[in-house]
């Protein structure tokens, strides 16, 4: 795929931690509206890559382009304002605020609301995700899956063009996984490009149009879910020789 027209263009990104090479000239292009799955064994660099894309970590080489614009030097909060939003593997809610107020922050900062719309917008999101009844609770009073939903809801409140979901389903039951998947599908229908990082293969394969596989900081495979499942290199990466 050519880089023109890509929503997100990760171009030869390299990242080192001291002597350890976490990402080795990784290049991935994401089309607008695409559902991309990003998989790989533990330590392959998935979260590091996401941290570089979101701006949480600086890169040691390569560029990152969003909608054609070079964002490699932009701080994280400005990337969020441009529309790159991520959720965290381990939920990081704002503990001193209610669920509703938690959504208020991205609404106010990342996607400045038209006057009066702020509260309405947040409630709509909560309704869609099923957290409406908990709007005035603090995060401490939420269950595990509710926290994950809050994490997603907060990301949605930032009005993303690109949503990166980092292992939102780890540790959830089968029904709960389907719950989250439904929400993600609905978001994609609304036009949001989604990158999903997951270990739950059933979810990734069902959700993704295309899958990219990382191993030890390198992109080792790319294709449809069906192709990836049959790929020998992928099998080796996960199961060893």
């Amino acid at each position, binding site marked *: 795929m050519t880089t023109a027209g890509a929503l997100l263009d990760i171009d030869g990104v390299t990242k080192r931690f001291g002597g350890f090479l976490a990402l080795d000239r990784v290049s991935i292009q994401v089309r607008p509206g695409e559902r991309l799955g990003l998989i790989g064994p533990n330590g392959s660099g998935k979260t590091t890559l996401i941290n570089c894309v*979101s701006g*949480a970590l600086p890169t040691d080489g390569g560029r990152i382009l969003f909608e054609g614009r070079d964002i490699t030097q932009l701080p994280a*909060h400005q990337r969020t304002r441009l529309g790159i939003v991520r959720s965290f593997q381990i939920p990081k809610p704002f*503990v001193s605020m209610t669920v509703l107020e938690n959504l*208020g*922050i991205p609404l106010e*900062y*990342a996607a400045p609301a038209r006057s009066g719309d702020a509260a309405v917008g947040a409630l709509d999101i909560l309704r869609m995700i099923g957290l409406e009844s908990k709007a005035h609770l603090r995060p401490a009073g939420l269950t595990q899956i509710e926290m994950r939903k809050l994490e997603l809801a907060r990301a949605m409140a930032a009005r993303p063009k690109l949503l990166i979901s980092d292992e939102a389903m780890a540790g959830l039951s089968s029904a709960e996984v389907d719950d989250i998947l439904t929400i993600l599908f609905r978001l994609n229908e609304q036009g949001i490009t989604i990158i999903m990082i997951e270990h739950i293969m059933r979810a990734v394969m069902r959700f993704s149009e295309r899958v990219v596989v990382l191993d030890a900081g390198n992109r080792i495979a790319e294709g449809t879910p069906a192709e990836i499942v049959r790929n020998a290199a992928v099998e080796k990466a996960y199961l060893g020789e």
Partner: protein
Amino acid sequence: MKIRGALVVAVAVIGLGVLLGGLRVNPYIYFAGYVVLQYVVIATAWNVLGGYAGYVNFGTPAFFALGAYTSIALLEAFRAPLPVLILCGGLVAGLLGLGIGYLTLRLKGVFFSIATFALSVVLQTLIINWDYVGGAKGYTLIRPPVPFFRSWAVLLFILMVVLAVVTVLVARTIERSWIGRGLAALRDNEEAAECMGVPTLRLKLFATTISGFFLGVAGAPFPYYVTYVEPSSTFDLNYAVNALAMPMIGGTTTWLGPVIGAVLLGTAQQIATVTISSELNLLIVGVVLVLFVVLAPEGLTGLVRKLRRGRA
């Protein structure tokens, strides 16, 4: 309460202060009141950075003393009037806050805290060696004839009432604004706040500057209050501990906390210094601080909130 309501209350409080100034009481009462109100300013200023943003400043003495010594320098150079002293004391201290913030706020919060502590020690060394403002020997201020009011005690008291009201108003306005919400987000989880669009570095620098500014404002009239300014009492560790203890006791998440803490602890200390040694007094403050941090970290306002929620 809307801003208009708050302004009405503010003016009323100042009016009350003026009325109190008209009473014929022992001038010591006014001086004691000055100290308590000074702590309202200090605690509120500290809390803008410590409570709202979650960054602990151990170097309150540095900012306070900078306000005092800027006054002295300006008095020596220009015989500047009090309002100018207050404004400049605040500006210089605010700049110090901005500077130390710029150097250390991109790193973990603990480095900022350590830097502020070391800052106190270094600044004190600098002042001790600067004879223009009196150095180690100290600086003596001869108060000119008091303008408008009956006595300097009354003037200083009312001045501090005004400064306290202004500081609390500013803190309250920040707290309820989008800045305050952004600060709360970065206090709760800085990484998440940044990823939700909050410009964390800019907000932190804002908080450090405002906090430093008002700490300097608190210190600017100090030479008029004590008339003899020397480094060891101006840089007293007392200010550092009280600046922490008062918001901790009152509650750090709202403007009311530092006010309550300052009034309670400040008044208690004023009473105590007459009865027990100042060192025992300090020891008790330290113990109370640790007890509150361990047992009631949300302070008195937090306890009240919990009680109300439990009853609801």
